[in-house]
């Protein structure tokens, strides 16, 4: 076996070399017309002894008009999707777990663009006329549902998606947004997602995606984002850009026994790629333009390390920022970084964060890449938080009505903001809220109440702009978009809305009706605050995808919790009983009332009289007979009743027979 492997190895290598130059040449040509693919991984220790791993794969295809419809690297399914449904922009995320905005950061590019609500979230912007947007959306949901083995097709129903105007993204009109909070995310969703990568999980960074270790984590969110300029004139955009990210938060198990320190803080767990994912990166994906691993140290962590170093009077010779150093007083990195990047100072930032860059081009199966970080000193730091801590909860009890409350608490950032901006006089903190509520939660928008610092405020003082589209039963969800302006000195604020719980038809309940129904997350964004991290000065085109993503100016954004609303259930087992009993009562009403109405005094006498007289039908027949024969009526009436009845019977039989014969002749 080993022999065989040895024999085969040169062949493999040869093929690798053979393949290599092609991809290199493609990348090197550098023209935007070519397709390219890049894979990156960002690792970041988190303050609560966890580790964030963020995989980022980006594929790009040029305009079909210039390059034809055939693709070398770009997944054909996606490009067909774009072609067919005229998708301008799209984002689909599968998430399990909830992003912890306090501990894992709420003010950095990763949290604002990769922290997603639990379940499935999908939004898309279409490049079609307004009246066709809904149709395109429905088709897209079905296509994606097939592509990702998920029940995204539930978003087809108009009760589940909404068309936000300005509350979510500025593109109004052709934007549709929907989310399925209940959707369970598992490997069957990851596998089709991996299929879109040119190397799948056979080579490159994606080999790290060992399923058990990913799904063991506290949070994982797999995301697919599509931007296309396919329908704009050529040369304006860069074709279709497909961005696939997987964000995982895992708890590294400490390898060494933790030494007890006099400090209260414990030593951060040391980790390596093998200890987290159980695998090493043995080779890069040969089709990738670049495959890079970054290790990011938070700004506050860097500041903390600085102060520790100053405390310990350690010479600045082994400063962790200087290039090529893999070990310092505080921690040790198992692999020597290729490059150390320092964040260019932002305006509001206290200290810059640091990126260690590791290129995995030079690693192969004999010497696989296994990054590890070993802490020497206990460090405690905290991530930069969003301006306001957001949470949403339900109030009230019982299954008849309740209230939704969104509470906003200021974090230390707002205090800083207050200190910097009080000089300007009127300082306002803008908050945008976008909330979609299913129709069976019947929100009374007139009961909107705003509390600032726990005191009720007039709604018009705080709400700057508001757009509401109330829910229509079984047709559309309720959408609320609000722009609030709070004074900067605010400590806390709360918004409450009352609602009634609806009652559904038994067919509309899901199989586990008593579990309750989910209200999707509300989206709270802060338009005044933007996250952007710049690590490189030059605007070179071959900048890595993650870094260019970091540079994008995106508003700080946070998702609230998903709410679970229990609804009353009817008895599912006995529809027949209900139908029969109700119908019985109806019949009782009808019958007894009619009986009362037609009962008369002396009924028996009249009945007796009636029996003597021939029935009205018979009388009618007599008259008819009299007319036909021309004889006077009295004469017919005076004839014996038995003969008349027999003759009428005979006539009836003759009539029926005549009709039958006619039928036979005419149609037979």
């Amino acid at each position, binding site marked *: 076996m080993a022999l065989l492997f040895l024999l085969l190895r040169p062949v493999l290598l040869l093929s690798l070399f053979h393949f290599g130059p092609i991809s290199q040449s493609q990348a090197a040509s550098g023209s935007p017309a070519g397709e390219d693919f890049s894979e990156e991984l960002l690792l970041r220790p988190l303050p609560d002894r966890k580790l964030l791993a963020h995989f980022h794969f980006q594929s790009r295809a040029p305009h079909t008009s210039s390059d034809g419809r055939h693709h070398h690297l770009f997944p054909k399914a996606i490009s067909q999707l774009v072609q067919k449904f005229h998708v301008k922009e799209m984002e689909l995320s599968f998430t399990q777990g909830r992003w912890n905005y306090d501990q894992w950061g709420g003010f950095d590019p990763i949290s604002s663009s990769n922290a997603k609500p639990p379940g499935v979230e999908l939004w898309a912007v279409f490049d079609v006329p307004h009246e066709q947007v809904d149709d395109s959306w429905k088709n897209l949901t079905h296509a994606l549902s097939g592509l990702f083995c998920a029940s995204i097709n539930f978003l087809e129903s108009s009760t589940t998606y909404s068309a936000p105007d300005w509350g979510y993204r500025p593109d109004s009109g052709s934007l549709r947004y929907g989310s399925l909070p209940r959707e369970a995310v598992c490997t069957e969703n990851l596998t089709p997602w991996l299929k879109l990568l040119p190397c799948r999980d056979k080579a490159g960074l994606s080999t790290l995606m060992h399923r058990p270790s990913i799904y063991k984590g506290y949070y994982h969110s797999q995301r697919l984002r599509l931007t296309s300029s396919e329908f704009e004139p050529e040369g304006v955009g860069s074709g279709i850009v497909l961005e696939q990210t997987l964000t995982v938060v895992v708890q590294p198990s400490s390898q060494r026994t933790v030494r007890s320190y006099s400090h209260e803080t414990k030593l951060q767990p040391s980790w390596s790629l093998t200890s987290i994912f159980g695998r090493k990166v043995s080779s890069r994906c040969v089709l990738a333009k670049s495959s890079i691993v970054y290790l990011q140290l938070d700004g506050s962590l860097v500041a903390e390390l600085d102060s520790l170093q100053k405390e310990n009077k350690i010479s600045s010779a082994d400063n962790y920022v200087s290039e090529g150093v893999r070990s310092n007083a505080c921690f040790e990195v198992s692999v020597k970084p290729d490059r150390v990047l320092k964040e260019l100072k932002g305006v509001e930032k206290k200290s810059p964060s640091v990126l260690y860059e590791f290129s995995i081009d030079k690693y192969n199966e004999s010497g696989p890449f296994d990054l590890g970080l070993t802490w020497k000193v206990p460090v405690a730091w905290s991530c930069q938080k969003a301006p306001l801590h957001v949470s949403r909860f339900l109030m009230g009890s019982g299954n008849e009505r309740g209230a939704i409350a969104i509470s906003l608490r200021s974090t230390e950032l707002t205090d800083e903001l207050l200190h910097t901006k009080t000089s300007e006089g009127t300082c306002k903190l803008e908050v945008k809220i976008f909330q979609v509520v299913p129709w069976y939660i019947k929100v009374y928008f007139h009961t909107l109440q705003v509390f600032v610092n726990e005191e009720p405020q007039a709604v018009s003082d705080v709400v700057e702009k508001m757009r509401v589209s109330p829910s229509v039963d079984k047709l559309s969800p309720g959408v609320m978009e609000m722009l609030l302006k709070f004074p900067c000195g605010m400590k806390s604020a709360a918004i409450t809305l009352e609602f009634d719980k609806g009652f559904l*038809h038994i067919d509309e309940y899901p199989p586990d009706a008593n579990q309750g129904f989910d209200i999707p997350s509300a989206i709270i964004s802060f338009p005044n605050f933007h996250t952007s991290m710049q690590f490189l000065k030059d605007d070179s085109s071959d900048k890595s995808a993650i870094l260019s993503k970091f540079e994008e100016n995106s508003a700080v954004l946070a998702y609230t919790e998903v709410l679970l609303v229990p609804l009353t259930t009817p008895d599912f087992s006995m529809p027949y009983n209900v139908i029969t009993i109700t119908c019985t009562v109806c019949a009782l009403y009808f019958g007894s009332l009619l009986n009362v109405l037609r009962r008369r005094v002396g009924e028996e006498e009249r009945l007796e009289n009636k029996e003597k007289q021939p029935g009205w039908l018979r009388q009618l027949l007599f008259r008819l007979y009299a007319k036909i024969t021309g004889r006077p009526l009295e004469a017919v009436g005076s004839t014996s009743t038995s003969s008349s009845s027999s003759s009428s019977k005979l006539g009836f039989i003759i009539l029926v027979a005549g009709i039958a014969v006619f039928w036979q002749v005419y149609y037979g």
Partner: protein
Amino acid sequence: MEEQSTKRTKQKQGRFWTWVTASVLFRLILIYFPQNLNLSSRPEVSTPLTSLRRLAEGYWLKQSSMSPYAGSMYHGSPLLLSLLGPLTVKRIDEQPSHLLCSLVFVAADILNSLLIRATGQTLQIAYRQSLRSLDLDMISEMEILSPGDIAALIYLWNPFTIAACVGLSTSPIENLAIMLALYGACKRLVPLAAFGWVMATHLSLYPIILIIPIILLLGNGPDTPRKLFLLRRHGKVEENSSSDSCQQEKVIDQSKLLDVFSWRPVMLFLVWTVMWSVYVLLLCGVSVKQYGGLWEMFTSMYGFILTVQDLSPNIGVLWYFFAEVFDFFRNFFLIVFHMNILFMIFPLAIRLHHRPCFLAFVYITISSMLKSYPSVGDSALYFGLLGWFVYELSEMKFSFFLFCVYIGVSLLSPVMHNLWIWRGTGNANFYFATAMAYACLQIVLVVESVSAMLNHDRKLRKLSSAKLQDGKS
């Protein structure tokens, strides 16, 4: 003797007004403690059609330049919105916000009771007159109160009425429209009757069937046992064939007068109806013009009533039925349930055409039993009207049983609702069972009252024929 009787009537009057004042005070006291009662959110009181909270939501939507029918919150009339809407927002300082609306509802209730009383008195006079003309003075002067007073007091002191009034539902106003129509028809105030009927139909659709009793009232007058008169005329004719011709002519004149269905007020009523409906539609059209127009109003008001879209629990039976019934049967049963109201209109009108007010009572009871979103406000009205016929219906069967079961159901239903909705220990079936019992109760009430009324007529006929026999012999 006469002095004594006037004194007695004055005493009666005084007693009546004390009770009315007491009821107003009771209501005001209840209004002052709204949070303790929380009646406005009870399913028995506020249905999707009558809830003031929904009206406030509709008003809010309208104020923020959206259609009040956007979303499926508000299903009432746009006129009610512009009347009551501002009152839901305006508040007198230091007072609860619903105070003004509650005062409006109290005023509507008082007006209702006065209309019931006035109509009842007219009815009584007509009844006495017809009895007197038949020489049947069976009703003694020893009545404690006149039926009108009894009906008004029943209406005012009925716990259902008080709950509907204090519980902020718009049903007192709907009842007011119905009462205006009946009062106008009884007093032969044609424009008022037309206005009342048009408004009642506009507000809650079901009073549309009241057009038959109103036309009969306008055509025949409030109480015309015509058959008895006919009987009497024949008897008298036979009897008087031998006596002088002058008396005979007089009798014939009288019977002719009674026999004629006066078409003039009916035609006038129809003309006024058309005018009022055009006027109401115009007003509605103006107030919903910038939103969805009249069509949206019709679909969200009457479409909502007819298709039973809201399945939240109420005291009727339809909500649970339509929550459970299979979807492909839904339309069929919608037709069946609405036909149940319509099917009985003509048989009842044929048998009870000489008692239009009783006919109106029966119609109101039937529609409040079978309507898609019934509330206790509807039952309050028919209980009040029942008071008009206390003497005619004195021999009604099961009246004690009915009274007891009414009390039982109205105590059990909130308990079952609480167990099901709030505690989660009960089951929907228990609450539905009380709704079923309530429906059966109403059925028994309708059937027994109709039967008692027919028996009463029978008795009158027997008495009058016996008198004729006596006269002859």
